[in-house]
């Protein structure tokens, strides 16, 4: 049996090697994803370009502008003379926020009254807008406390108050790349194995060579194993590539056990290979196989919490996310890499991955065999 599998593997490797461009793409895709996600993905918003309309022109209004600038959230990039000018700058997107300090602001503060300012926020990008919204108020609040303190002769340091000492665990600098690396390892495993398995089987069917394989003494399980094993090897190579670049280039710490991660990844491959085989039994052309693979990949990416946190989704989608195997693999990968936890904490996820693997792979092999007969 094993020698027959080796022949199928050999044949598949020849196919892969004959197409060096696709091979190169297989190895380059993870690097490219890493670089893009590592450098482009920043959800932390600071230095928002801000336009200021200061109608008051007092030392108090300048003080407030300075406080906003010092907060690091806002960069005063423009000064406008009229509301129309401010609107135009925000319409064009040159500024994302606008601070309007009306006439009389300094006067109100001197008389110990509450003074009003307007803060215009471009809401089109909600992530930026929400940060700006909260920061606009926090800065003003801090300034108010300082002014109140001055009134009774106390400075910020001597005022009573609650000071918060945040301790951010697992990822102290809240770097996005630390979050992306575990996710990418899981995603690459699913993407490569599902797409390539389905494409390679469908290609044989499209070109009619699958009949030739069937008249040989190779049995269906051997055929499947032989065809998918080279892609499993590539997937693991990519996984190692991601981890190595992650650790040495981006300085992501791996806190848990790498062998454990590899073992659970192998278990997860049962699911993704199963999906690939299942797709190959449905699709008739390579194009269809590609569409179907993307069809399974897209919801996985979005619902598993790869890009956006599951906690922020509507409840119905959170419920659906429980039937997405990638969700569990993401938890496992980030648990092992970032938190350094082991099976004692991750066993429910591992159990889910095992169940998915057995069910999906089993169903796929059965369908595949039935189709050959």
């Amino acid at each position, binding site marked *: 049996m094993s020698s027959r599998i080796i022949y199928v593997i050999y044949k598949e490797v020849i196919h892969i090697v004959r197409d060096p461009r696709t091979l190169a793409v297989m190895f380059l895709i993870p690097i490219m994803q890493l670089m893009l996600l590592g450098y482009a993905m920043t959800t932390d*918003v600071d230095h928002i370009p801000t336009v200021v309309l200061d109608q008051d022109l007092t030392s108090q209004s300048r003080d407030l502008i300075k406080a906003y600038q010092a907060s690091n959230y806002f960069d005063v990039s423009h000064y406008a003379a009229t509301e129309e000018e401010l609107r135009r700058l925000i319409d*064009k997107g040159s500024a994302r926020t606008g601070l309007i300090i009306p006439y009389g602001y300094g006067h109100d503060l001197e008389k110990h009254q509450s003074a009003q300012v307007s803060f215009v926020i*471009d809401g089109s990008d909600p*992530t930026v807008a929400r940060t700006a*919204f909260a920061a606009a108020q926090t800065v003003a609040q801090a300034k108010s*406390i300082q002014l109140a303190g001055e009134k009774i002769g106390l400075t910020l340091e001597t005022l009573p108050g*609650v000071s*918060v000492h945040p301790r951010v665990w697992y990822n102290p600098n809240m770097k996005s790349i630390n979050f992306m690396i575990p996710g990418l390892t899981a995603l690459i495993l699913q993407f490569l194995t599902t797409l390539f398995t389905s494409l390679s089987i469908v290609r044989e069917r499209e070109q009619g060579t699958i009949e030739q394989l069937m008249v040989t003494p190779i049995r269906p399980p051997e055929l499947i194993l032989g065809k998918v094993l080279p892609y499993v090897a590539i997937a693991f190579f990519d996984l190692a590539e991601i981890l190595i670049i992650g650790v040495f280039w981006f300085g992501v710490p791996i806190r848990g056990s790498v062998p454990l991660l590899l073992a659970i990844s192998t278990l997860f491959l049962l699911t993704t290979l199963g999906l690939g085989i299942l797709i190959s039994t449905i699709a008739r052309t390579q194009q269809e196989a590609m569409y179907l693979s993307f069809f399974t990949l897209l919801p996985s990416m979005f*619902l598993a919490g790869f890009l956006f946190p599951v906690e922020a989704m509507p409840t119905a989608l959170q419920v659906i996310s429980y039937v997405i195997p990638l969700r569990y693999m993401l938890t496992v990968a980030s648990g092992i890499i970032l938190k350094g936890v082991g099976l004692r904490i991750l066993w429910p996820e591992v159990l889910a991955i095992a169940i998915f693997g057995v069910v999906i792979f089993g169903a796929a092999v059965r369908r595949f065999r039935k189709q050959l007969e």
Partner: protein
Amino acid sequence: MLRRILAITRKEIIHIIRDPRSLSIMFMMPVIQLILLGYTATTDVEHLSTAVLEQDQSLQSRELVDAYRASNYFDVRFYVSSEGELGRLIDAGEAKAGIIIPAGYGRDLTGDHEASIAFVIDGSIPSVAATAFSAAQTVAQAQSMVLIERLYGIDVEQQAGIDVRPRVWYNPDMKSANFMIPGLIAMILQIQSTLFTALSIAREKEEGTIEQLIVTPLRSIELIVGKVMPYVAVSLFNLVEVLIIGVLWFGIPIQGSVLLLLALGVLALLSSLGIGLLASTIAHTQQEAIFLIFFLMLPFMFLSGFFFPLEAMPRVLQLISYLIPLRYLLVIVRGIILKGAGLSILWEQVLALLLFASAILALAASRFRKRL
């Protein structure tokens, strides 16, 4: 000339219709993307599961916990009695934040001192952590104001307060769908049509039928136009599909002119068709075409401002983004739909897109002709 183009278009339509599954996927794909992006693409996290370790057990500490609970950001689900227990809950992911109020907190506050608390945040998802981080400090700041009022009788907000009136323009509820759906429209115009064009020509190459077309009296320009026309139609159909679902289902307000949007959409399609054509001159097989497009799609998605704001990226990536047509298209589509902007504001973006489309089409057509 027109007759020959139409003949090619007819041939391509027959190809498309013969494969009803791919056809239905072409129409279904945008709907699925729309629903996924419309509902999942949000980093707005509220009601974070929170564990509290109250070592102080005073009136003041309970007051602080209440303030955190009332803030909507934190859901106090666990009361723990040791740091080890708190650590386990966060390790397991059952709690994302932990408040530790040390013994002496209440005494410090009544004694006019500053009192400290520790706030543990699970940093593994940075966007969640950043929200929790700032919310933790905002709540404490508000609590400090309450304390100042109680101790000194100064109502900070009334007597010395700066009252900020935020006005959120364009998207007052800060709904993610309002941001993602216009982006998706740009994405569909750019990616889908590129993929279709590249695949349809690569298929002819793989099957060797392109030689048959070359021996006909067709000129290469007629071949190109005839082949891409049906895909232009599909892409425009998809654009309208996404617009309709966006408006009727997600309630996206379209502030600007739909006609302008469609006109600029056609301009964007020209640039995508150019990229697709260029890819088809490079790829020999469908599989290669798929990977080439996928390879392009990644920087398009991440460097255009589709997911993440350009301002936050390193300088080098910002410079690269100028080479990505989707960047301009995103500003145009979001500008028209959300801001109601017209040509007087968008002309720079339109010009950039126009330049890009003509350059890429010219390059693709000359390479394509040489290949034939």
